């Protein structure tokens, strides 16, 4: 376990460096939103998901949906590190003639379940997958990662109501609760509190954890549930690079060469 945790910490660091390289090279945005979900993705892809990178279309596989698709960099990096496709492809992100678009296109690389990019689409889709697995007696589990700002979308609550009603215990939602959305802090733009109680009242099991703590993530993912489960992961936007942490601007900015060097040093020193 100790050894596993160390590996996961190292992998998280690698992912952040890949993301930094990608965003810097392509001069793209959304680095902050990618950094807040790194530990969640590392836990899923190294401990939880039953998916075969050599055959990512096996019928009883677990399925992961990144509904906050603007965090695509982090997903591309973990998929490449998990051997779904070669690491070299990460250089083909966002640029002219590239392979990996800013938001998800399932035709781009293996391992992407659904093309998306508009918020509030991933959970209804995941609910459909979970419902189909129930009636087909397919043991595959469905995991959907959504953003906190994304919870402003009405479809989140339409799906929450449906999944609670149908007791979809094969469905786990992870909320990247980094407290910053597109144009302000969540509690200023549209407070979600009492957040856990909202989900409880929709007939979900709620786990509130530190979304950067692997032990808490593993415990939450592995906990038994007879209802759909939501993991409210308290995270920090821009986590891992001190000058980016908890800053709205890093939803948009790309690091210049000095910022790149400074961020790289900090990530490598960890």
């Amino acid at each position, binding site marked *: 376990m100790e050894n596993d945790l160390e590996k996961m910490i190292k992998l998280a660091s690698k992912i952040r460096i890949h993301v930094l390289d990608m965003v810097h090279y392509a001069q793209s945005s959304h680095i902050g939103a990618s950094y807040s979900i790194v530990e969640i993705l590392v836990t899923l892809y190294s401990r939880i998901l039953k998916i075969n990178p050599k055959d990512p279309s096996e019928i009883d596989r677990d399925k992961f949906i990144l509904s906050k698709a603007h965090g695509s960099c982090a997903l591309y990096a973990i998929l490449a590190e998990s051997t779904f496709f070669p690491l070299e492809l990460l250089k083909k992100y966002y640029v002219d003639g590239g392979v990996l678009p800013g938001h998800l296109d399932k035709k781009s690389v293996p391992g992407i379940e*659904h*093309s998306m990019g508009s918020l509030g689409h991933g959970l*209804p*889709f995941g*609910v459909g997958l*979970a419902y*189909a697995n129930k009636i087909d007696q397919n043991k595959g589990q469905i995991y959907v990662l959504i953003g906190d700002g994304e919870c402003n979308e009405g479809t989140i609550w339409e799906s929450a109501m*449906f999944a609670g009603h149908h007791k979809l215990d094969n469905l786990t939602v992870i909320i990247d609760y980094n407290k910053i959305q597109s144009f302000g802090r969540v509690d200023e733009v549209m407070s979600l509190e009492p957040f856990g109680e909202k989900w409880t009242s929709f007939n979900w099991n709620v786990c509130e954890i530190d979304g950067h703590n692997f032990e808490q993530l593993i415990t939450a993912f592995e906990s038994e549930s007879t209802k759909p489960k939501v993991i409210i992961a308290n995270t920090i936007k821009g986590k891992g690079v001190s000058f980016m942490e908890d800053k709205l601007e890093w939803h948009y900015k790309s690091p210049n060469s000095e910022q790149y060097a400074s961020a790289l040093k900090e990530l490598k020193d960890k």
Partner: protein
Amino acid sequence: MRNAFVNTLKELAKNDDRVFLVTADMGFSVFEDFRESFPDRFLNTGIAEQNTIGIAAGLAMSGKIVYVYSIIPFVTMRCFEQIRLDLAYNNANVKLVGVGAGFTYGSMGSSHHAIEDISIMRSIPNMTVLCPGDPFETKELIKRSYEHFGPVYIRLGKNGEPIIHKNKNKIEIGEIISITEGDDLILFTTSNTLELGKSWVDEWSLEGIHVNLVSVPTIKPINQSMIRKLIDRNIPMITLEEHSIIGGLGSTISEIIAENGKSVKFQRMGINDEFSHYVGGAEFQRKKLNILQKPEKSWFLK
């Protein structure tokens, strides 16, 4: 058309356990039998059309052939972006079935009128747009929609339309069908205007006026070469649709005429660019708005 749809779907479901029906709480007195016959393949998602389309996409990606049913505005416009992304961009095997073409729900008010659906659906890549005009076309095209992999929009009228087709030949997606032959006018109809167009043609024939009535049950993809052959006949053409003149059948045909390079006398008949504030059924709406009224024969006779 609604009964033709439900009965055909039941037949398909009997023979293929992938066929799945999803409704956003619509279908009272329509789907009870389907629900009893195939309880595991019937899902009422509640009144939440955006979620419904997402769920339908998830079911389709799990191997189901999914039919989603509602009144046209709610199954096309309320959930438009879900259709664009979750169905069309992902090429999900989901069929959208809307009832209430044009002013079918006339007295319900403009919220329930379906006047822009063809236009917006045909602009989406990967989307097939089917607008059957009678129960026979409905049955045929529901079968074709099942055979076709990918998203399809099917626009239905209501119930109780007469069967216009005498030759009950198989109808393919994209095909246009001559119902009557004639050299005085080519009258294109789509969806619920087939019955109206046929009644005009029958009346004209008593006066010795012969009209080539052409039913266009597929708006996209349309068989362009069949349309070009009709343009080459150099006979006046009218398109008739209970839909906005922007973006529907009239637009589709006029685009082909415009790019064909040969001029032909042409007129779009449909709903002008306005909402109706009149209270009344379909025929009443047409009269008050002064649309879809039988054209003067002097317009097309030489």
